């Protein structure tokens, strides 16, 4: 068998490489430099917990990774492919919104305030991405949506509207909505911060279940115990940079940086 010469790609991604890579990410709003050169990798099936004080840039980083906002500088790579830009001659230019929409299909996002669609039932919230983005017929989309609601323990609430669900239930529907699209990475932006304390547990349980099933997840959170129990890697953000990045045991028991020790003394 003859070997066809392949067009030489810069480098070939293999499953052993990080599924998502962030390189030298910068973001400014007016005179505020919110992200100052963020770098990290996440491998398939890993859970990364991102801690840090409010306003440290954690949520901004997630929005950039979800391609909801353009970065000022730096790269986001999914399976080695650079996202959000295309090459025009020697310069890279941001993709137009329609093209960005296609790349976003592979990255799921769960928001602090759920952002469920109030005019659609729980089931139709989960179906919408399937029917309107993946063009899956309604019947099949409904079956898959119901299966996903079952997974988050809410199949008995499928016909209810968001206003008829508790905050915890709404967030579980939002997780199902992101999950049903079968994303490569699922991003969580403080998923329990808007919840009453007694409703936090049900959402964290669902997330722990996903982690155990091998979902690749980046979780911006204030839930330190969750980070310790579920995450493979814990990251501390402060003033737009990553201060510390370590395994949970190292991070909590033997932090290398003064800033981390100070942060932990406040949240423990």
């Amino acid at each position: 068998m003859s070997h066809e010469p392949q067009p030489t790609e810069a480098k070939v991604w293999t499953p052993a490489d990080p599924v998502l890579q962030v390189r030298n990410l910068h973001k400014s709003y007016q005179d505020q430099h919110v992200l100052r050169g963020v770098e990290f990798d996440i491998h398939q099936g890993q859970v990364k917990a991102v801690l840090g004080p409010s306003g440290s840039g954690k949520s901004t980083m997630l929005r950039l990774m979800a391609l909801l906002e353009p970065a000022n500088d730096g790269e986001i790579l999914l399976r080695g492919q650079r996202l959000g830009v295309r090459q025009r001659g020697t310069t890279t230019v941001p993709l137009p919104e329609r093209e960005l929409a296609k790349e976003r299909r592979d990255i799921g996002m769960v928001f602090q305030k759920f952002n469920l669609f109030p005019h659609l039932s729980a089931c139709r919230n989960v179906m919408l991405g399937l029917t309107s983005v993946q063009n899956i017929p309604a019947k099949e989309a409904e079956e898959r949506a119901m299966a996903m609601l079952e997974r988050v323990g809410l199949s008995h609430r499928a016909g209810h509207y968001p206003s008829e669900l508790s905050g915890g239930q709404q967030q579980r529907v939002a997780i199902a909505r992101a999950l049903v699209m079968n994303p490569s990475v699922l991003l969580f932006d403080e998923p329990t911060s808007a919840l009453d304390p007694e409703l936090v547990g049900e959402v964290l349980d669902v997330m722990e279940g996903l982690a155990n099933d091998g979902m690749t997840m980046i979780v911006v959170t204030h839930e330190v115990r969750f980070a310790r129990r579920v995450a493979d890697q814990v990251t501390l953000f402060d003033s737009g940079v990553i201060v510390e990045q370590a395994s949970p045991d190292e991070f909590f028991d033997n932090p290398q940086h003064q800033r981390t020790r100070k942060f932990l003394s406040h949240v423990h």
Partner: protein
Amino acid sequence: MEFDIGIFVQQLVNPSYLYGAFLSVAVAVLALVLATAVGFAVALGRTSQSRIAQGAAGFYTWFFRAIPALLVLLIIWNALPQLFPVLRQEWFSPFIAAFIGLGIVEAAFMAEIIRSALLSIDEGQNLAGRALGMSPAKVMVKVVLPQAIRIALPPTGNEFIGLVKFSSLASVISLQELLTTAQVGVNITFRYAEYYAAAIIYYLIIVSLLTLLQNYVEKKFLWTSRSKPKKPSTLEPIGQGVHA
């Protein structure tokens, strides 16, 4: 001169009143459809990033909110046919002139209603739609518009009722709508009270029906599982209380 019930009832069942009422409602319905379509485009222009679109949409709103509807009707019916021969042909009737004239004026007001409805939708809805990978047009049609319509419905109902009454302005371009019908009768018989009272009854019936229609449509936008008729579908809740 006493109020003659006989004349009043006679006019109430007079087919020309019914026809006049039909013309009034028809002009209002078509004007509202036109106003909603043009108003939506103007609202998109006013909320767009493009300076040109903003400017054009702003000009439209400014211009047609300033000009009296009566003047617009007179211009369309009298002035434009002098300038454009195509409008001198048979098809250009007072009915068409009336609904176009009222529609383009009303569009300036509908644009503001639609714009404020679009702006009132939480930014998180847009984010959630985009995060799912929906194109901007899909986000608008599937996520933002259904929610904006609910917000725009009550003020639109007001505008609709206003249009039914504004259709009486079309009497100046010789449209035989409801009020003109009454006026023509009065000019012959001088029975003011009876003819105007008949017109009142017709307006009351029209606006009552429109109010019922509005209530019905608003119920469609309640977004609760309980307002929907029971259907044997998995999309319906299964025998549990809402907050169980």
